[in-house]
């Protein structure tokens, strides 16, 4: 997987590149908007990580230019501008995700993974299956090894998100944003409590726990 990091702060760019390389990605760097646009539109990258405030060309203008040129590479914006308005502007400009600086590296990694696996939306899917766990979107029903599991509506959404990102690390912030549509960090770790409830229902009584906590990062649902 080949990534392009467009970030003018060379130290930050080096950290991001190093972290991503350690995680098995091939990483190129651009330190300026125009160079970034040129590289992003010429070489085949799987995802772009773009800072908003760049010399030469603003990050949003860069993304808009890429989208206008029919380049559909997934883009994650990294920005110190974190107000809801800023996010909306970023997503409207054509980016696929928005991460506010400062961020935890685990968060960035999880989001990139999610971006890379997102692919084209599959509308026709009505059933999700991870190992022996099955989720029926139409019937709003969940079962494991054929045994039905009763879930509250929010637990259902939570499990759906985890199953759509099966095998990937999903952070608390990602869950808050996607499942609850909240863009703030509650002081108490409410997500942990919701996950442990869900774990009670999904994993209790089964030999293999599927819902794991990834230390310092978040959670992962996988067949193990």
């Amino acid at each position, binding site marked *: 997987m080949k990534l392009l990091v467009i970030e003018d702060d060379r130290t930050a760019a080096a950290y991001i590149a190093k972290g991503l390389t350690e995680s098995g990605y091939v990483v190129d760097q651009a330190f300026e908007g125009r160079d970034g646009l040129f590289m992003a539109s010429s070489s085949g990258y799987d995802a772009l990580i773009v800072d908003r405030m760049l010399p030469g060309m603003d990050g949003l203008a860069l993304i808009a230019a890429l989208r206008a040129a029919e380049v559909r590479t997934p883009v994650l914006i990294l920005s110190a501008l974190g107000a809801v308005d800023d996010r909306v502007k970023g997503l409207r400009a054509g980016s696929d995700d928005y991460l506010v600086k400062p961020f935890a590296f685990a968060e960035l990694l999880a989001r990139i993974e999610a971006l890379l696996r997102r692919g084209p939306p599959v509308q026709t899917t009505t059933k999700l299956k991870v190992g022996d766990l099955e989720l029926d979107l139409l019937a709003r029903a969940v079962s494991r090894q054929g045994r039905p599991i009763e879930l509250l509506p929010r637990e259902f959404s939570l499990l759906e998100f985890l199953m759509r990102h099966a095998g990937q690390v999903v952070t608390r912030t990602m869950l808050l944003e996607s499942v609850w549509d909240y863009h703030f960090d*509650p002081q108490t770790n*409410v997500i942990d409590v919701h996950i442990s409830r869900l774990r009670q229902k999904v994993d209790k009584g089964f030999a293999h726990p599927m819902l794991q906590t990834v230390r310092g990062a978040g959670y992962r649902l996988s067949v193990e």
Partner: protein
Amino acid sequence: MGRFFNTNAFRLAALYFALFAASVLTLFAFFYLSTAGFIETQIEATVGAEIRGLQEQYEQLGVGGLVALVRERSLNERVDNMIYVMTDPFLHEVAGNLSGWPRRTTPVKPGWITFPFEVHTHAGSETHTALGTQLILGGDRLLVARDLHDATAFRQRVLSTIAWAALISLGLGIIGGLLMTRQMLRRVESVANTTRHIIHGDFAQRIPLTGSGDEFDQLGGNLNAMLDQIERLMVGMRQVTDNIAHDLRTPLSRLRSRLEVTLIEKPNTARYAEVLRETIAEADQLLGTFNALLSIAEAEAGSRRDSAAMSDLAEIARNVAELYEPVADDKGLTLAVSVPATLPVRGDRHLLSQAIANLLDNALKYTPSGTVSLSVGRDGDAARVEVTDTGPGIPPDRREVVFDRFVRLEGSRSTPGNGLGLSLVRAVATLHGGAVRLEDNDPGLKAIFTLPATPATQAETVRASDARPAA
């Protein structure tokens, strides 16, 4: 003085003076024309009446009678300065009080002439001008005229009086204009002086008011009110900066010394990893504080646009309650939720969610056992969110202070938190034109958050329930 001529006040005074001068001059010119003209009209009328009278006499008495009459009238010193001359067709004087037919006559208008003539006085003789009209009767000619000397003298008199009056008025006008300008300049200057002092750092300065309540006083009053507001904001800002400096410096220096001490210890890899993890956790906490501060700043500087969108407070509250329900459950607390089907308000969904979340978070955090309740409802014109708990509560004298940034009460320092939760709640309330206060729940604490509600019309109720986002 050069500065003076460049002022707006001077230009105004000059304009005022020009208008004043123009009206004074027009007024006096009108006065002069009508006065001076009046005397001349009178003379014309007198002369005209006299000559008509003589003509009538001529028609009744014939030439002989007229000559007798003219002679009689010319006997005395010129009565009323009237001049009579009667001649035969060859301009030989037959009767009259002038030495012969005037030689140099000037026509002034049809039928009327002026001519100079000699007047004998005690001092000698002087030339006067007379205005007259003539009549041709058969072959004889009659001239009746009147000395214009008095009229001219009067006209001169009027003219000089008017000239003096105009001069004095204009002089007064200039002085008045200058005084007015100076007065205005002084008021403006006092504003300029005050602002200059303020620019140079003396923020206690205020614009002096005269108490007259005039426009300058109003302007000064408004400027003073603005300065007060700015000063309040500046003081607030300084407090916030001081707080931030203090509350971020403490954890930062802790973080730094932890790293330093670890280096001195010459530890093994496992110890390094442990310290790094602790450091990251601490950095995360710092970032959390930063984010909370930014959220508050965002809400405080919040655009009205965000707070003008329609949201359903009932649904927001339900969602937050649902988010916290497992937390209460885990802690063995009862979370009692009482929320109506819908309650439309104008407000930002994200900010309102966060405010209610902070209130619930606090209640759940500080209540060891018992019940936490969240109720939403209408309270007259206001939408009201009430969060109660059965925890230790807050003493009455501390219930306002806890809204300040970084304020954490004794006994709460052991629990996680940054002392910013309630500050955000207050900022959100203020942004939406609402309020938040704490009361005694006996036992425990009651937080009351109010927002102006929109009237519960059928249409709005429907729209609000339609607008539910698909979560």
